[in-house]
């Protein structure tokens, strides 16, 4: 490992990341690619219609089935007395926002499915963390900015996909990283850099870029541990994601890795998104309540 560090050049590192991306793209994980990017495309196209969303979901029959099942579950159908038998009905009655969110959640969840515990890490806790971050980021957008925050939600769901890739395709290194992080009490990125010469933010960015997701998402995910270095046009979403990630890790939605605690960066991010600590607390509380309800209904 140290060898890689010492001999690693910039070109070597890019090649290593590419190797990992190739592994991901020839594995089951890439099966979420087409549905995922299609939903993201619908989200980012202001002229998109219900029909398109319906078609995107129907193209993936297992997803359509899961969406219907979830839509009919107690959590979502609390205000509806009817049973949805097709996606179009569900979209009309529940609204396309909820369905998009539901479809995304179901889709991304697929890559977190196999539960495996290493040290204090487990995919299940990583998935719960991702949902929490996604929801938190979305709520910041909605409550503070009066915006839908759908991309923030997607970014939250996918921000740690690099960790999944490492966990699945570099299991030995990944264990070493976790142990190293725990033993030396260093944050995960530092451990990754030591062992691999790159970290999961870079891997995530590369995977999602290879799937053709928009720059806003890839850049934001790529900079989710150093949001201040993100591109100026994405500074708000980067700050929102960073804030959500940090707050979730600190307050009970961690996945077992040692959290980063850069108070300076955190405060700067709060400034960028202009959210009062009280408001953040309030949003966190509501998010926690939602997660608890979903967990209660067996959705997480």
């Amino acid at each position, binding site marked *: 490992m140290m060898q890689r560090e010492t001999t690693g050049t910039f070109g070597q590192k890019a090649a290593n990341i590419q190797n990992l991306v190739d592994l991901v793209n020839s594995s089951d994980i890439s099966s979420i690619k087409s549905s995922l990017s299609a939903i993201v495309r619908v989200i980012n196209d202001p002229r998109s*219609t*219900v*029909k398109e969303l319906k078609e995107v979901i129907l193209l993936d029959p297992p997803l359509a089935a899961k969406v219907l099942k979830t839509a009919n579950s107690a959590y979502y159908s609390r205000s509806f007395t009817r049973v949805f038998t097709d996606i*179009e009905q569900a*979209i*009309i009655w529940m*609204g*396309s*926002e909820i369905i998009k969110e539901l479809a995304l959640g179901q889709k991304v969840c697929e890559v977190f499915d196999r539960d495996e515990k290493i040290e204090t890490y487990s995919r299940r806790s990583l998935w719960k963390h991702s949902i929490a971050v996604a929801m938190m980021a979305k709520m910041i957008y*909605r*409550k*503070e*900015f*009066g*915006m*839908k925050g759908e991309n923030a939600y997607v970014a939250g769901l996918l921000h740690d996909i690099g960790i999944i890739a490492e966990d699945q395709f570099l299991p030995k290194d990944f264990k070493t990283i976790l142990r190293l992080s725990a033993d030396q009490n260093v944050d995960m990125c530092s451990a990754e850099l030591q062992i691999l010469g790159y970290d999961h933010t870079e891997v995530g960015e590369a995977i999602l870029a290879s799937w053709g997701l928009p720059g806003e998402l890839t850049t934001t995910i790529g900079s989710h541990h150093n949001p201040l270095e993100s591109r100026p046009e994405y500074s708000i979403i980067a700050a929102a994601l960073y804030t959500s990630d940090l707050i979730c890790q600190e307050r009970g939605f961690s996945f077992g890795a040692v959290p980063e605690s850069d108070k300076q960066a955190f405060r700067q991010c709060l400034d960028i998104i202009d959210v*009062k600590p*009280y*408001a953040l607390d*309030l*949003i966190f509380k509501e998010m926690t309540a939602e997660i608890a309800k979903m967990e209660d209904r067996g959705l997480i």
Partner: protein
Amino acid sequence: MAGSKEIQELKEKILQLEVRNKHLTNELQLTEKEKEAARKNYFDIISNMEAKVTERTRETGELRKLTEAKSKELQIMLDSSPAMIFYKDSQNRYIRVNKAFSQTLGIPISKIIGKTFAELFPGSEKQFLEDDLEVMRSGKPVLNITGSIETRKGRRQVLTNKIPYKDINGKSIGIIGFAVDVTDLKQAEMEKRELEDKLSQLEKMEAIGRLAGGVAHDLNNVLSAVVSYPDLLLKRMEAGNPLRKPIETIRQSGQKAAAIVEDLLTLARRGVPVTEVLNLNDIIANYLESPEYETLRTHNPSVLIETRLEKNLFNIKGSPIHLTKTVMNLLSNAVEATLHKGTVILSTANRYLDMPIKSYDLSVKEGDYVVLTVEDTGIGIKPEDLKKIFEPFYTKKVMGRSGTGLGMAVVWGTVKDHKGNINVISEEGKGTTIELYFPVTREGLLKAEASIPFKEYMGNKERILVVDDMPEQREISTTLLETLNYTVETVSSGMAAVEYLKTRSADLVILDMIMTPGIDGLDTYRRIVELKPGQKAIITSGYSETGRVREAQRLGAGEYIKKPYTLEKIGLAVRKELAR
């Protein structure tokens, strides 16, 4: 400063409320936007649905047209089938039938639909209904059901296949049936089988006859010693010699064997030319004077033997030896059948057959025949034995009673060699009638008959038109009439006669009553008298005088003469009609 702390707290509270206010306002706004979007989507979908409904309505219309076209195609297919095809629902009601079905029953389709078989044919066979139930219950076809139904053409045999009619889920909802009228087929099959039976019977008898004949030749040589030497021995023996008795027995047995061999030889001589012109009455008369007949009479004093011989019996061509044997065998069989008590009638007759008739062997073709009939009031023959009576050595008599066992075989062979036919009518306990049909010959006719002198009915070249569908009859009539000095023209049908008389005339028309195909004698005469009122005519037929003959005579036709006609009969009739 307490006040400033409170102010600080209040400020804090206000700030918090502001945050909450902001959050709620933002959520409200977003929700309203989402609601708006949802409503827009909803309307989009609704209007989209309207378009869909229009589209679907159009599609349904097209589908219906297609269905109608397919239905028409199906009906054409169903109607093209010669078989009767029908669909029934689970209540046995007809829901669809084809043209053949409706036409066969003679009921319009509209009156069949919705009815059950029992409703269409009250009192009909239950069988049909049971088959339906069976098919419905088992869901399996029932095939080759035979039955009969009443149709426009009368009672017909039908062969029916019934197949369950199932909906798309495989549930039986009725039956589909195919029925074929097999009446003609069955009839034809039966006739064919009958014919085949008869043919094989014929072949069998021919074969046995040939075999028997072959054996006879050799046997005869062997027998001569047995027949000749006893006489020689007896001559040299003393009257009281005790060996005389056994030797006499040997002689008797030898003579009996010789008789058998003789019959066998008669059979073996089958196929000798039967070219001699003879009269069956003469054959019978000769036989009645023979010692054999004398013996028969003396052995059966209680049997009444009657002879009814037709005067002016036609000649036939044949072999006198064989015919004599035939008469003898038939007569002795008949006498024996009476068990020495009863009546036997031996008769001859001229007979003309207008149409073929069925007989014991093959059917007898139309034409002129001499019929020899031997009728007894004896024990009769069982139906199952009837087939075998002409086989050599077949007998129902207690063995050894009499005869050689070849008598009837000789009769059979003789009749076949004379191109004749045999008919046997028998009823157990009542008696048996055997008729032999021999074709008539016209040769030697002139010298044989003429009890009234010729010249009394000779013609004077008067024109006579002979109308007859049978070529032989036309030829006979021509020969006879030309012999009698008439000018003869012939035509083969009633219509041809009418055509003939449109351009020409005849002094007399000789009209056959029964002509097939085409119009008969009466219809012909009706048309003739329209053309030529009062046309002189003679009606002829093989049958007895009928209403149609009398009708023709009422219209002006003259004498009716029964076929076959003799020179004298036709000559006198023609003279009489011409003089009328």
